[in-house]
């Protein structure tokens, strides 16, 4: 188990290194001088020179990459050109919106998808299954930002149960914060739940056809007992993969959803930075997103081993 974890950890470090190189390189090949690109065409030569020094553009590429990575590792993400504050502070502030939102949505999507998938699988071919699958088919087709607009129209504008946008902040209390994030989380979660429910159903159906399920029935377990005791955990393995992938979709999706609800999260930060050409912020946020995706997949890998004893042995 430890060896498996170490091996995954090594691959995580390699992935992160390569990802940081890619991001650095992409920003590097940006046409033109980053400093003049950031400041626009009317920049004063002295401001330009100051920014160049600030960005470390007078150093070699290798030195700059190492400085950037070193900074990331020590929590120093550089200083935003537009905000004039450390990027780490801005990101930390925004992360308090984006991360809870993604986790809230992930929890919702899992809570909806598991029962739905199990229900459909246990009723294969019957009306309940067909109805559920029709609903998920529709759920998959709905763009989350459009769904978000509809939620706003119904629950915020007409029913006035929620605010149409903005974020009250966590200092108003946990429940107030959660309340404010509910509509965005539902908008994010439902389409993902539809996908997850479909995966859960087909994975369970695959497992139901396995020989060991027949063995369980031959022992005297009822269909329901066999499903719960032997089917679910086996069906969970492909579902875990999708949950891992979904986290990255949710993070990315929250970038769009934050636009709908005017939430001060990472997504809005990215768009503001792009329009302000604040590349340091863009670079750091992208790195952070990629970092979280890689880390989540690492956790999923470990979760595999927890579920599947065959992996614990494999070196």
């Amino acid at each position, binding site marked *: 188990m430890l060896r498996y974890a170490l091996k995954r950890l090594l691959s995580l470090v390699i992935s992160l290194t390569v990802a940081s190189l890619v991001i650095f390189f992409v920003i590097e090949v940006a046409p033109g001088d980053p400093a003049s690109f950031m400041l626009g065409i009317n920049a004063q030569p002295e401001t330009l020179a100051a920014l160049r020094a600030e960005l470390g553009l007078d150093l070699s590429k290798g030195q700059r990459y190492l400085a950037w990575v070193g900074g990331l590792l020590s929590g120093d993400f550089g200083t935003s050109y537009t905000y004039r504050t450390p990027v780490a502070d801005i990101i930390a502030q925004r992360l308090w919106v984006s991360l809870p939102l993604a986790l809230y949505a992930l929890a919702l999507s899992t809570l909806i998808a598991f029962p739905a998938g199990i229900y459909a699988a246990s009723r294969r071919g019957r009306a309940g299954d067909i109805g559920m699958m029709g609903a998920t088919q529709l759920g998959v087709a709905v763009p989350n930002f459009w769904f978000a607009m509809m939620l706003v129209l119904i629950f915020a504008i007409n029913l006035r149960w929620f605010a149409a946008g903005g974020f009250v902040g966590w200092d108003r209390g946990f429940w107030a914060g959660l309340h404010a994030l509910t509509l965005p989380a539902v908008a994010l979660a439902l389409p993902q739940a539809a996908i997850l429910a479909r995966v859960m159903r087909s994975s369970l159906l695959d497992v139901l056809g396995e020989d060991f399920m027949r063995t369980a029935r*031959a022992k*005297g*377990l009822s269909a329901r007992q066999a499903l719960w005791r*032997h089917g679910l955990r086996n069906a969970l393995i492909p579902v875990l993969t999708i949950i891992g992938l979904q986290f990255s979709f949710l993070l990315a999706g929250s970038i769009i959803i934050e636009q709908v609800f005017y939430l001060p999260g990472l997504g809005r930060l990215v768009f503001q930075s792009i329009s302000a050409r604040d590349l340091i912020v863009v670079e750091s946020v992208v790195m952070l997103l990629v970092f979280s995706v890689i880390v989540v997949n690492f956790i999923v890998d470990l979760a595999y081993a927890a579920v599947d004893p065959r992996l614990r042995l494999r070196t």
Partner: protein
Amino acid sequence: MSLLEISNLSLSIYETEILHDVSLAIETGEIVAITGESGSGKSMTALATMQLLPKGAHTTGQIMLRGKDLTQLDEAALCKLRGNEVGMVFQEPMTALNPLHTIGRQVAEAIRIHNPALGRVEAETRAAKTLTRVGLPGDQFPLSRFPHELSGGQRQRVVIAMAIARHPRLLIADEPTTALDVTTQAQILDLLKTLAKEDGMGLLMITHDLAVVADMADRIVVMRQGEVVEQGETKHLLTHMTHPYTKMLFEASAHQVSLPEAPSPQPLLNVENVTRDYKLPRKTLFGAPGHFRAVNNVSFDLQRGERLGLVGESGCGKSALTRAILGLEQVQSGTITLNGAPVFTDTKPNLNVRRKMQVVFQDPYGSFNPRHRVDRLITEPFYLLPDPPAGAARAKAIDEALIAIGLSPADAQKYIHEFSGGQRQRIAIARALIIKPELILFDEAVSALDVSVRAQILDLLADLCEAYALSYLFISHDLSVVRTITDRVLVMKSGEIVEDGPTEDVFQSPRHPYTRDLIAAARMLPSVEQEHAHAHPG
């Protein structure tokens, strides 16, 4: 009252009739074998007895277990019965266990499900006892083992443990040894027999292997296409078969062919000191990867016109050796030459040599691209020729090959799914014959076929030997087939050839202990005449 009495059982799945008017009975302590070829409905009879039928199944008739009609019981009553009064063992031990649970937990579950009041510890103690009974003592096989840590035979023992944990009255075993090696097969069959005797269980064996049937069963039920064609007490049935199908089945199982005289020896294939290693995954993160030696310093010759057999159990290295001879994989040391020319030069297979060899594989379903027609499939080896026949010459070659294997030239335009398993294997032979190779490798070529089809293919091979003076290497785990279809035999174990000699000599007086084990473990069908002389009256 019989232990189990099936009367007039008919079963259809959706509109297709699977079983028709099946009647049979098992007494307490009796071993009854249902036998027949694929599609005979023998497994479905077993599943019907467990009432574990696929969706859409509809039955009529009665299945009486100690006076209760199983077809009339509700699901809850059936759950109380399964694993408690009737236990079942399945064909595929590799997939029959839940990979995520320990063997102890799975056996204990079989006990606790019928006795929920039993504590976990007590259930585990009983599970350990049951595992010891089936030959998995706790000091070597603790309850905490996972299925993937056990071999196929050991896993089958776990499945048996689950089935007998509650001392059922009836044990159903559906092809319990088909997926296992010969020596393991013998052990599992002995175990089943012993357990049945000790517990006084009725044992219902489902098997296609007539040697097993003749050896174990008190009574035999022969099925064909969902119907019972004949049944009776074993010794009586073996001597007084009445139904032509039963006779055909037993004859085909013991089918002998007569090969033409081999021509005077003249070297064709020479394998010298061949070693083949496979890389294993790294044991430590940065350590060098380990090696698994699949073929270890193997040498042998094959003469022109010789029919050579290669027998061994799974994992003995016969497949690796086959791939090396075909030049598909490079060997680590040693040489393989055909007519003196190496099959592998440097890192490239030698096409001049390869066009003189062809191969027939085991799986009649997997060995053809489903998207091509027969003419294209069987002419694939023409790709090896520098100037392959085209137009009329190609058509003539196709016709000849198809006629030689007993199909008609018109079949060239059909797709492979239009043919039966036996016909497909004929087409595979046509593909091998079409470039008139000097050597053909038969890699378990008849292992997946039903006995009657197998007999026909063996006849075809004998005929082809007559017509084309074939030289072949016949690789198989089936000793009875190798015995009749080869002149000389090699026995392979753990990557080494342990015995090499004329087939009859090796079978009559094996020298190596492993060969002796192998031959002792393989149940040979008693010859019917012989049995007749010893038959008890009645």
